[in-house]
């Protein structure tokens, strides 16, 4: 009797918890009649909707659906004409001229070249204290203006007439069209900023847009609501007329809301659920290799890391294949170089010879190197490994176990993320880990991190004058091919020194309803809502 009861209960439970795939009757947020609503989980609460005061990818999603720069992203994230219909470049690659289309802000005021000049001057002016200002430093005089050494009027950007913008650069930057589709380079409605000031022009009610959608409301922790901007030049092509952005901080909850049909798309995902999603919901899971590198680094200013053999041994002993295939399992490629694969105008460096050895051979070699360097069972290498916050994936526990195999004792120290960064910056640590995601697709965006002139942001304190000189040389080279060759030479020089241990390339992850079209996976995880649609909404 009792066991029969138990069995029934178990059966009931397995029905509840077990299979039963497919989209159920979705519980969706109310959508006003006559509107086509897109429900989007962006993964975090925006700290600001000001294009010049935000830095997160979730903020980028919302802001880029409302504002458009000189260039814009296509569905795959590649630059296409935005507010500028076309542009020309001078022979020395230093002066770029952009020709604007006839467009209006959502309040009917025309978008002019002055709005772009105002936008770029705004992000570098010291009073705005924009965190991301350094991104536009390739523009002439941007750095000294940002540091308060020159007035904003000296910035290398001017309005030739109402519809022509000219940008002058410090050095050739073939990636400028990519940079201009980033929100740091977005225009601001000068008439509104002049009227309401830097803080209040972006409040709902004042915020005017030149892009496909305009702001309706933003309630903290709940959602941001935007609706179609009828004055957008391609307003008739928009499929969705209203978008709700949710700060889906709980990633599993966001994922479940998409699977049940409450949301149409959500990002990012919890690492160790990828395998499950790939198995059970392959049509929902979307991933793409990104332009990023996760790496470990030595505090190269410490005497204990002076010996290259020690650094090489530690790099060799890390089993990147186990890490990427078993521990992370998202399809991340193992990395042996710093610039990730897929970088435009760049050929990745080949992995070192030992990368193809079996793990046992690498471990044996690593042990030999360590003992040559004076370490052994009697005098094991022991150090503290500072991590940025809690790692639920077990990636660093796996690295720790790898090193234990060669007799190295790494003590993991989980430190609050921002405190870890602070310690890295002042070099108050022994060994650390960090990830870098490209701000714009160019090898220089990675390699400059190890330039000794980069200062605090060169966490490992790598200092090699030959490397610095090569980077300076590349910066002055207008020819894209020659520039790439110099950069490759620099990277090889640096990798041979082993100041860092590259681990893998990150993969972007979205869970998206198969009904949602127009979302093309791309390295930058750039998805403009204007290209999205649902089969049932197509006219």
């Amino acid at each position, binding site marked *: 009797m009792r066991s029969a009861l138990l069995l029934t209960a178990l059966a009931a439970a397995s029905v*509840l*918890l077990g299979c*039963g795939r497919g989209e*159920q*009757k*979705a*519980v969706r*947020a*109310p959508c006003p009649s006559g509107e086509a609503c897109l429900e989007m989980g962006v993964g975090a*609460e925006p*700290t*600001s*909707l*000001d294009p010049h*005061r935000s*830095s997160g990818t979730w903020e980028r999603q919302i802001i880029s659906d409302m504002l458009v720069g000189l260039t814009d992203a296509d569905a795959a994230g590649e630059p296409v004409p935005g507010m500028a219909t076309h542009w020309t470049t001078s022979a020395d690659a230093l002066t770029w001229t952009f020709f604007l289309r006839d467009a209006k802000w959502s309040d009917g005021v025309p978008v002019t070249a002055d709005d772009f000049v105002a936008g770029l001057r705004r992000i570098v002016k*010291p*009073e*705005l*204290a*924009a*965190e991301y*200002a*350094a991104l536009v430093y390739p523009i002439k005089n941007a750095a000294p203006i*940002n*540091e*308060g050494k020159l007035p904003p009027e000296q910035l290398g950007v001017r309005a030739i007439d109402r519809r022509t913008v000219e940008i002058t650069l410090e050095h050739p930057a073939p990636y400028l069209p990519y940079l201009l589709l980033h929100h740091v380079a977005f225009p601001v409605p000068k008439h509104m900023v002049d009227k309401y000031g830097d*803080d209040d022009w*972006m*409040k709902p009610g004042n915020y005017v847009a030149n892009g496909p959608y305009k702001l309706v409301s933003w*309630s*903290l*922790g*709940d*959602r941001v609501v935007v609706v179609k901007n009828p004055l957008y030049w391609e307003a008739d092509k928009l499929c969705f007329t209203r978008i*709700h952005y*949710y*700060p*889906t*901080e*709980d990633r*599993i*909850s*966001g994922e*479940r*809301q998409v*699977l*049940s049909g*409450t949301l149409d798309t959500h990002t990012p995902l919890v690492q160790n659920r990828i395998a499950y999603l790939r198995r059970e919901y392959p049509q929902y899971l979307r991933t793409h290799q990104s332009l990023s590198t996760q790496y470990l680094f030595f505090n190269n200013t410490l005497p204990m890391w002076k010996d290259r053999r020690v650094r090489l041994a530690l790099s060799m002993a890390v089993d990147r294949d186990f890490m990427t295939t078993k521990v992370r399992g998202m399809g991340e490629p193992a990395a042996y170089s710093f610039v990730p694969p897929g970088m435009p105008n760049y050929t990745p460096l080949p992995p070192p010879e030992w990368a193809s050895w079996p793990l046992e051979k690498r471990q044996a070699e690593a042990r030999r190197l360590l003992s040559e360097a004076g370490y052994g069972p009697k005098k094991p290498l022991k150090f503290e490994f500072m991590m940025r916050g809690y790692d639920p994936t077990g990636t660093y526990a796996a690295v720790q176990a790898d090193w234990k195999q060669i007799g190295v004792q790494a003590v993991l120290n989980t430190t*609050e993320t*921002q*405190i870890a*960064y*602070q310690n890295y*910056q002042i070099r108050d640590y022994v060994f650390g880990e*960090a990830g870098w995601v490209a701000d714009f697709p160019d090898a220089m965006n990675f390699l400059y991190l190890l330039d000794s002139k980069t*200062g*605090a*942001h060169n966490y490992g304190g790598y200092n090699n004058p030959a490397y610095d000189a090569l980077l300076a040389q590349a910066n002055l080279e207008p020819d894209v091919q020659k520039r790439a060759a110099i950069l490759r030479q620099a990277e090889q020089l640096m990798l041979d020194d082993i100041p860092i241990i590259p681990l893998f390339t990150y993969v972007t992850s979205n869970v998206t309803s198969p009904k949602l079209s127009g979302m093309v996976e791309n390295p930058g995880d750039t998805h403009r809502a204007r290209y999205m649609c649902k089969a049932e909404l197509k006219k």
Partner: protein
Amino acid sequence: MLRFILRRLLVAIPTLFVIVTATFFLMRAAPGNPFDGERKLPPAIMKNIEARYGLDKPLIVQYGDYLADVVRGDFGPSLKYTGKSVNQIIAENFPTSLKIGLPALILATFLGILLGVIAALKHNRWPDYSAMAIAILGICIPTFVTAPLLVLIFAVKLSWLPIAGITQGLKSYILPVIVLSLPLIAVISRLVRAGMIETLNSNYVRTARAKGLPEHTVVIRHALKTALLPLVSYLGPACAAIITGSLVVEKIFGVPGLGKSFVLGALQRDYTVVMGVVILYAVLVIALNLIADVLYAVLDPRVKLT
């Protein structure tokens, strides 16, 4: 009694002052600042930001400025959410926390007392054991397990309730309220049970029984009244904690409450947000403790309020 309340209200002012002062300096003693991140800001930009929020002044001056603002009811701008003031954040999020916290509190108190009384009356018999089994499960399963589990059953598999968010009206609040009240039910029922068992064996309840009073009168009028004493002590601060929100519930259910501001504010060093929430919380704790003490006196005539 009135004198007691008045005096406590007077004492509340220096208490609040001490809390504000202690939190202010404790927070500034913690390493880090709200603008630290992956990219070290160039010193020039850092200086601009600090000037913008007055963080470049000596700490004691900042403290003075802050106190002056607080007295005027202005908690300042959030350092992390540019464009939102702390007053605005509290005004937007506190009502949501209340909407979940109050029903959870009422539900938990009602069910907790009910379970506790039943368990005590049937002491060492099966209703006692089953009530306490429920209570123990409620205590020892963390909310970060119950929340996703209930979501999995009622939202994902059965589709009766929304998975997250507050866009579905009343339905949106059911799961968060239940999850929030579960551990509370457990604690309350145990406290009530312990108190009831003790008072049911006490002399005056025996006397009341001996006088031939009906059992329900004995239980409700005599025993329960005394048995609720430990509960009253417990509920004061618990109530303040519950209506100011819970990080886990807010995160898993995507509810815009104040609990997140508390924890994330502290982690991100959003000084003004933490200060604002701490002050709100402190006022609630002081007020609710005062109410608890008054109730204590009302329920237990042996206690003199002086």
